[in-house]
């Protein structure tokens, strides 16, 4: 298995005058927990969106494990094994928490698609994951009726349901209770131990520093520094641009 996971080359996306992502060439390490940090508006989410095909990049290449996935449709990216969560938490409001999970089941082939959605296997797995993030007691409530943080947890669990090799999380800890953040950390570590790659956008330094093996710092749509947490943390540019001390 190559150590090359997700790579971008001169990825660029601008909206009108705003250069959201500006020739970003980044390489994330396979099987590691990567962190992507940067000030508000530095292009992290847009970067995610370009990579996962939610929006088309103006130029540049995206490759995953060696093969080119530039401009592939989101569901293709997902099929390729990349799962992502949204910053502005997105769940299916009028579906029950459990059904929210089941959407993530990745069908193989027509027959599999036509098979019953509520089969024991899928449900059991969904329950496990819900229990993991601590909202399994809500499985029958509709997603619109649970608190914001609970929705974030649900979204995370939903992504895990697709059983991705690479998991891109956009501010998973935002609005989540600290005690639970700790638990999320453990969850991420375990999944990583199973060989899953993580790319996490997060403003919670505590989490980033304690969790990640490799940190990429974005500013104005391009990486200004990368390396292991310790070095990045003390990089003057990072201090200036991001941490602000």
């Amino acid at each position, binding site marked *: 298995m190559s150590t090359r996971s997700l790579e971008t080359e001169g990825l660029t996306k601008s909206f009108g005058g705003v250069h959201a992502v500006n020739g970003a060439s980044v390489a994330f390490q396979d099987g590691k927990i990567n962190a992507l940090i940067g000030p508000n508006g530095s292009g992290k989410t847009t970067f995610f969106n370009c990579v996962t095909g939610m929006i088309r990049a103006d130029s540049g290449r995206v490759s995953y494990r060696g093969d080119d996935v530039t401009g592939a449709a989101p*569901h293709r990216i997902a099929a390729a094994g990349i799962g992502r969560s949204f910053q502005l938490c997105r769940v299916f409001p009028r579906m029950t928490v*459990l059904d929210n999970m089941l*959407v993530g*089941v990745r069908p193989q082939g027509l027959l599999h698609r036509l098979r019953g959605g509520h089969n024991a296997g899928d449900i059991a*797995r969904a329950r496990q994951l819900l229990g993991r993030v601590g909202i399994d*007691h*809500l499985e029958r409530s*509709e997603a619109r009726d649970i608190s914001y943080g609970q929705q974030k947890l649900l979204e995370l669990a939903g992504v895990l349901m697709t059983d991705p090799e690479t998991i891109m999380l956009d501010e998973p800890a935002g609005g989540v209770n600290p005690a639970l953040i700790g638990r999320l950390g453990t969850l991420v570590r*375990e999944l990583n131990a199973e060989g899953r790659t993580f790319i996490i956008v997060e403003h919670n330094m505590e989490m980033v520093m304690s969790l990640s093996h490799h940190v990429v710092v974005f500013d104005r749509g391009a990486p200004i520094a990368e390396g292991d947490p310790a070095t990045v943390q003390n990089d003057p540019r990072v201090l200036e641009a991001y941490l602000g001390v």
Partner: protein
Amino acid sequence: MRSASKAPDGTTGTSGTTFDRVLLGGKVLLLLAGLALVLAFPGLAPDAFILSVGVTIASYAALAVGWNFVGGFTGYISLGHAAYSGLGGYATALLIIDGGLNPWLALGVGALGVAVVAVPIGVASLRVRGASFVIVSIAMVLILLLVSQSWADVTGGSSGLRVPRPFSDDVLRPEQHERFFYLHVALVAVALLVWWAIDRSRFGIGLKAIREDEDKAQSLGVPTFKYKLVVFVISAFFTALAGGMYALWFGYLDPIFQFSILIGSYMVLMSLLGGIRSLFGPVVGAVIVGYSLEYFKNQYGDSQFHLVALGLMLGLVVLFMPDGVLPAIGQLVNRFRPTATSIREESAADLLARTTKTEPRQAEEVSR
């Protein structure tokens, strides 16, 4: 802050409590009773007219169920489904008249043809959501109206088109009604079966996800456009079958009545009325609407007042049972269920204890 009303589309995998089991039993009984009633109807009908009303309602039901493939699953409201029933009707008729096909063959071929035509239409119109889609669907039917009116040498234009009878003339009219009643019922049954199969399938869950949040669904690996297109075509197919069947029964096609927004709207009304998220919603809606149409006409005979009556009825339903009749009933039933708490009945401490305890086991579960 709206109340936490849960649409009882039964999609909560667990049916553990005795309450649920009782409920299920009730449903089954109701279903069987309904079925028996439907099958016995032609026998019970006092005269050919009542029978013909039955056929009309059955054909409404077929149309509504056809519509509900798109409306119910994807939440795309098409006010223009008359386009497909109309096309179905004309296709069937022309295949018989000009193509010399056997009526039933023509019906099938016609519907398939419409399904094929629906592909490009879907590709074009499914690009937009919400209001725009509604409008596009209306446009669709209006175009076809204009075309079928102007293209007289094929469609017979405004002087209409006579559809040959599938049954020989010695089959008397009441007999015809009876046969067509069963034919329509069979069609509805098949459509429902397919709907049900999709509803419980992963495909179905994907579709519902599209209804809720299309982009999110896509990012979870649901090929949204393909899914939408597929149900759209299925819907067009069944609607066309219903349209063709009606044409065979009624025996006369006139553009104005085939491609009318009113028919399309009726499909929407019936489905929403019954409840688009429930299997039998459209059927129930069709019965209510079909019956009321007859009833109001009968009451307010020669004045436009029957329109008012219909309007008012619909208004009331929308305001007081927005999810449709069936879900409304479902909610009533749910009152008796021990209220599901929506707040965690477990303090942070308990959570901590539980989750830490159970972690190892879950770890390998998840990795499967």
